[in-house]
């Protein structure tokens, strides 16, 4: 088995969706006040039996699933600097059995891998915290997951790559009748290691809250710079992971059960992509917000 090829493919699929969640969570130009924080325990998952090809068309694949139970945290180290972390405490990657509909025999055995996932750890610095806050974030993707698991070594809960993301956010809050509303735009650069192409990222978010309810809609994208290490291809490994791209939409809603506790629901889907899963992802979580 060509493990590097498998790793690249899996890396792409997992990373993109993980980043989808990350981008949802890390949005905004606001930073936390010193000593306050937002902490969320959430379950995120996607199950897909089709994917976008290198031409952006949809082809089937054996059903695969990725389930992450994660802790997300934003904690104000000062009034300017917020510590951010996304820790997949338990990550499960599965692949279904392939079974003959004629004989009922298993043609290819499925598999599952359980471990901790890749941890994102970063710092956000807020330049301006008025009605139009601006922030810059340095996010480090730590290769703490398992990049080569399962019997066939084709399952992953991490990518084995240390990447660094530098991101700028600018937001604007405003009022629409009784709705507290905000808009956020961001762009970022992901410097990837292990010979993978760097990425340009951008996204827009519109959110609003009313009484105990809040929600937001995001459109975000990753564009590959296609500048990966050419020796990867020369070593008979796939280069597509260096060129993967997607555009996605995400919707997230939250309900504040008490002043500090609440529930959140999320949905995300890549409506355009190359070499990524063509299936929605979902999240559900409970959060604790000490800034309120």
């Amino acid at each position, binding site marked *: 088995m060509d493990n590097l090829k498998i790793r690249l493919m899996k890396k792409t699929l997992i990373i993109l969706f993980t980043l989808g969640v990350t981008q949802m969570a890390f949005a905004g130009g606001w930073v936390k006040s010193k000593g306050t924080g937002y902490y969320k325990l959430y*379950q995120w998952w996607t199950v897909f039996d089709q994917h976008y090809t290198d031409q952006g068309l949809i082809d089937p694949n054996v059903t695969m699933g990725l389930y992450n139970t994660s802790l997300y945290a934003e904690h104000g180290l000062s009034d300017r600097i917020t510590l951010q972390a996304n820790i997949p405490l338990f990550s499960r990657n599965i*692949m*279904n059995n392939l079974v003959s509909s004629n004989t009922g025999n298993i043609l*290819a055995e499925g598999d599952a891998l359980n471990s901790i996932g890749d941890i994102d750890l970063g710092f956000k610095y807020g330049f301006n915290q008025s009605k139009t806050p601006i922030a810059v974030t340095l996010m480090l993707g730590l290769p703490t997951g398992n990049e080569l698991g399962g019997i066939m070594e084709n399952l992953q809960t991490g990518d084995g790559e240390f990447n660094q993301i530098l991101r700028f956010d600018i937001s604007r809050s405003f009022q629409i009748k009784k709705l507290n509303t905000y808009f956020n735009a961001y762009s970022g650069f992901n410097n990837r290691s292990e010979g993978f192409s760097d990425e340009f990222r951008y996204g827009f978010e519109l959110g609003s809250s009313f009484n105990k309810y809040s929600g937001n809609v995001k459109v975000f994208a990753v564009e590959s710079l296609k500048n990966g290490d050419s020796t990867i291809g020369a070593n008979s490994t796939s280069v*597509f992971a260096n060129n993967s791209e997607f555009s996605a939409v995400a919707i997230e809603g939250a309900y504040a059960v008490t002043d500090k506790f609440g529930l959140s629901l999320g949905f995300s889907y890549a409506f355009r992509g190359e070499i990524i899963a063509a299936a929605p992802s979902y999240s559900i979580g*409970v959060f604790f917000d000490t800034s309120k």
Partner: protein
Amino acid sequence: MKYFILIISGTIFLASCVKDDFIDDRVDPVLRISNAPDTIAIDTLYQFQYTYRNNIGIEEEIDVNWSSSNDAIFSIDQNGLCTPQGIGSAYVKIDAVTNELVDSALVHIGNETVIPTTERTGSLNTTTFYTLEGDFVLREDGDNLILEFAENYEASSSLPGLYVYLTNNPNTTSGAYEIGAVSVFSGEHSYSISGVDINEYDYILYFCAPFNVKVGDGQFEN
């Protein structure tokens, strides 16, 4: 709140079990005379053999009938043993007792036995949106086989874990012979294959191994 978390966690835990994906791996059964000679020497007996593959491409033994189109040229018993009777040409025929499958071959009776050199050809076709095309030839090279792809061969390099197989069921790699990982994505190249009879498999199969997904195939045309 805690009941909510328990219910959600339990539901997701159960949903994350490894389940079954079903594929239709049916193929048309095949009955074939597997060692038809060009010519049989008139003073020798010749043992014909057959191959039968069922509706999932697995080889099986079945009840068959052997017959000659002209008993004056050669006769054949129900075990496939051929006895030449005179110089000339006739068809040997095999038909399955339990179904309508038949096969036949023209056989000459002459002064010496001649086994034809076999060269099998075909063309690749993609079954996905990934590029896969090109002509191929399978030929004998001593005890080995050589699988050669022509200059018009092209395969997508975007696929992870792309492998090439010989198989009798192009829907699955189950029971297939793994030739190896694909490392050439365009132009002429070849693979050396050992321990395989040239008529043992009917398809070339390209498969994305990590995702158990068929990418394309090519059936031998002869």
